[in-house]
């Protein structure tokens, strides 16, 4: 039971929670779940090709940080190619947050349409013109000859060649927290903990600070502010009790501080088993977008 690993798990639980709230509304054609780097809903690729592509893409992400995914759908079901492609890319959130180095190759078999959707951060390397050339020269001719796996492979290779070297592989970092709104949340958590703590301490002296601290730990967002506000609330209640009672009791603070962590334990180890931050390590399992954004760059084509 390494105590040091707990904040990481807590962060995790919060991220999972937030993501589950942010599930996008269903559109005309549902965005398929991101089950891997190559999502073949039309069954157009033999599994050997699919696995090789997924390995290539995973290796590319490992060395450059760029997240590239392939989606093959049987049909657009009447939906606009760009609208669907952009919705898939922004829902999957390919690429890193802030760097936006993601790209999507979308193929709609029945519509005979191809689109390369390019994240903000790759627009310089994989320009609209370049994307269009890849579609026209690498993918479309092979598709026309009936070679879907060959076209997809050639397209992926051309995309990776264009964007290789755009970014250095990043060291996996924790997502930057937005500090602005958090101060108010922490204040609120401290207030809540203090009030309840004081009320409880009216009935039970020792339980008051503990409940107060634990409450504001749980009420605060994110783990670091949570520890902070938990500690502050605990200290305030303990201090108030101390002043009011005029009975010094140094053990309160020490024991309480430890207990706050223990009280939060169930909460912080509640996380799931998948990464929401990319970098799932080797292989294709547990692949997910890193929070990248797409502004409409890329190109469309047909065959």
């Amino acid at each position, binding site marked *: 039971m390494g105590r040091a690993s707990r904040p990481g798990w807590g962060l995790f639980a919060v991220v999972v929670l937030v993501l589950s709230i942010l599930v996008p509304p269903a559109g005309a054609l549902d965005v398929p779940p991101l089950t891997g780097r190559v999502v073949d809903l039309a069954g157009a690729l033999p599994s050997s090709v699919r696995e090789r592509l997924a390995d290539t893409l995973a290796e590319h992400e490992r060395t450059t940080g760029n997240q590239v995914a392939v989606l093959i759908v049987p049909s657009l079901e009447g939906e606009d190619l760009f609208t669907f492609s952009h919705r898939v890319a922004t829902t999957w959130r390919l690429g890193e947050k802030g760097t936006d180095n993601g790209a999507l190759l979308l193929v709609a078999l029945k519509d005979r349409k191809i689109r390369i959707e390019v994240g903000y951060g790759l627009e310089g390397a994989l*320009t609209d013109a370049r994307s269009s050339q890849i579609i026209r020269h690498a993918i479309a001719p092979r598709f026309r000859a009936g070679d879907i796996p060959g076209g997809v492979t050639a397209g992926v290779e051309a995309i990776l060649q264009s964007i290789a070297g755009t970014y250095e592989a990043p060291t996996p970092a924790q997502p930057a927290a937005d500090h602005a709104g958090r101060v108010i949340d922490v204040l*609120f958590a401290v*207030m809540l903990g203090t009030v309840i703590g004081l009320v409880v*301490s009216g009935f039970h002296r020792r339980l008051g600070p503990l409940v107060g601290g634990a409450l504001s730990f749980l009420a605060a967002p994110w783990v670091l502010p949570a520890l902070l506000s938990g500690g502050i609330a605990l200290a305030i209640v303990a201090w108030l009790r101390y002043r*009011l009672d005029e009975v010094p009791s140094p053990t309160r603070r020490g024991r309480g501080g430890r207990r706050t962590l223990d009280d939060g334990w169930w909460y912080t180890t509640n996380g799931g088993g998948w990464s929401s931050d990319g970098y799932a390590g080797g292989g294709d399992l547990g692949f997910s977008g890193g929070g990248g954004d797409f*502004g*409409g760059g890329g190109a469309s084509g047909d065959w």
Partner: protein
Amino acid sequence: MQSDASFDRRPGRRVPLAGAAVVLGLVTLTGTVAGCGYNDLQGLDEDTKAAWSEVVNQYQRRADLIPNLVETVKGYAAHEKETLESVVAARSKATGVSVTPDTLKDPESFRQYQEAQAGLTGALGRLLAIAENYPNLKADQNFRDLQSQLEGTENRIAVARKRYIERVAEYNKAVRFFPTNLTARFLLGLQERPNFTVADEKAIAKPPEVKF
């Protein structure tokens, strides 16, 4: 311990109540400051301005592509003078109307901007439609690259507009809803902002049907 606790009980009960009252007052105060939406409104205001800048940015990007496009088309279809000139005219009209974040409040200048841009969208649509009649132009690599860039820019404009529409809707809600509307009106002087109307754009931008 037992006697200690019962001894404490008397003053202990009275004073925490007073303390709780003070803290409760503080909570209410922070609640009021947070609840009046001052920060939220300021944030939303900035968000809409940023979203607007992106819209302007992408329209500008489109305008920048046009001289090159017109030159390329001229090389193959110089006698399509009327269409070419209408594109150039629409471009200069569109770049002539500028809407800064500060004049965003004015629905009239917003409408003018939108109309000018929609006029350019329409003229460009006509230009690309006639390009279909020139196989040599269509096969030109430079033209194909420009065409894909133009298409990408139109997509970016669509995304930027969509995001602006969402931001403004959020902002307008905050400006109209109670109690943030009080803060918006009396403290910040913020007003509702005009938003894009999809119907207008479609009507103006619709390229004429080409019949053979």
